[in-house]
């Protein structure tokens, strides 16, 4: 019996397991990188319906591409580029239909997605995963300080997280340092 794919398995391990017929590994790949595929498709301006079509096509292509993925560490960038390419293809089809109907001007499409954009989306995923490993108290504090809009006042954060107002600042620094370390940064000797 195969071991279930663990959330910490790297992409190379998951791809290798997929090649061995492990559909749990495939499901882990889909869950890990599906949000990136979806974000790229939506970012291109596709409706939810059209983005869903692109999403399916990308994963079909990924199945077929498994035997070629000799350097699976590049899987995140590869699938983001494939998603972007498919999204552009879908937009071209949609726009050519609209042009025919509405006689609107042709629109330029860029088949290449900037590396920085891919890196930013992948970084968001990695940070979100790392947030799940730093403890709920830390994650809650960082979300309150940097994610919630508007940022709640310290008094509210203190009540919500049962901590003293004076400890919010130092705790924030420790939590960010822990998050950075989870992401593989330097040690936190500079954080104190």
């Amino acid at each position, binding site marked *: 019996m195969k071991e279930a794919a663990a959330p910490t398995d790297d992409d190379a391990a998951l791809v290798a397991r997929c090649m061995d017929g492990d559909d749990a590994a495939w499901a882990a790949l889909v869950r890990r990188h599906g949000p990136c595929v979806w974000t790229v498709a939506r970012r291109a301006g596709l409706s*939810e319906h059209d983005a869903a079509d692109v999403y399916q096509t990308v994963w079909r292509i990924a199945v077929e591409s498994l035997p*070629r993925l000799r350097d699976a560490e590049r899987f995140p960038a590869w699938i983001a580029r494939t998603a972007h390419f498919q999204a552009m293809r879908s937009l071209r089809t949609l726009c050519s239909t609209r042009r025919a109907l509405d006689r609107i001007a042709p629109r330029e499409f860029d088949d290449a997605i900037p590396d920085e954009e891919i890196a930013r989306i992948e970084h968001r995923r990695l940070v*979100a995963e790392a947030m799940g490993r730093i403890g709920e108290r830390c994650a809650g504090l960082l*979300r309150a300080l940097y994610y919630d809009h508007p940022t709640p006042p310290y008094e509210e954060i203190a009540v919500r997280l049962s901590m003293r107002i004076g400890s919010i*600042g130092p705790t924030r620094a420790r939590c960010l340092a822990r998050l950075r370390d989870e992401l593989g*940064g330097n040690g936190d000797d*500079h954080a104190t």
Partner: protein
Amino acid sequence: MTTRPDGHVSWRRLLDRRDGRDGRLTSVRAAAASAHLAEGCAACAGEADAIERLVAAIAEGPPDEPPRRAVDSAIRVYRESCAAFLRDEGEVLGVLILDSIGEFAEPAASLRADASEVRRILWRVGEYEVDASVVGRPGGADLLGQMVPGGDDPAANVTGEVSVRGGRGVRARTKIESDGRFTLRGLLPGVYTIEGRADAMRFVLPPVYLG
């Protein structure tokens, strides 16, 4: 507490300087940190950028989740597409040798509606090679292939048949001509496994996207 012996600005002080919210950094220390950065310290600027990226990623949140139905469907793609290849019923499994779209080239590049673009794929299966061309057409892709037996006999014949199987079963089937050639036309975009019999050998090739 936040001073580093090497003269750089500590990570903690860079963070306090960025947030500037809880008044932990005195104006003197903040000015000193800013002056150090203004001197062009690459190490501290790099750390300040890393803090900005980290905070920005938290602020943006994780990438958007696709609808649950789309995720479930994508997960099923694997089992549906690979079922024939993974069923282990004694077929000889093919191995991809060459694909003209390359290891990490956009597979989608083969899907452009330009009939002049031909994708070339070569598999090895047992003693045979399967040499195939995929030609994209508006009505679906054409798969033009040839089973080439091993050995040195140029007159060796191949008998058998080839079929393509999609998620819902066999989509097309054809006989292998005596010279090993076979043709399957009008395949709608999708992932298929190519399987069949060449002489006495039953075989199945890895899934391939045709469209």
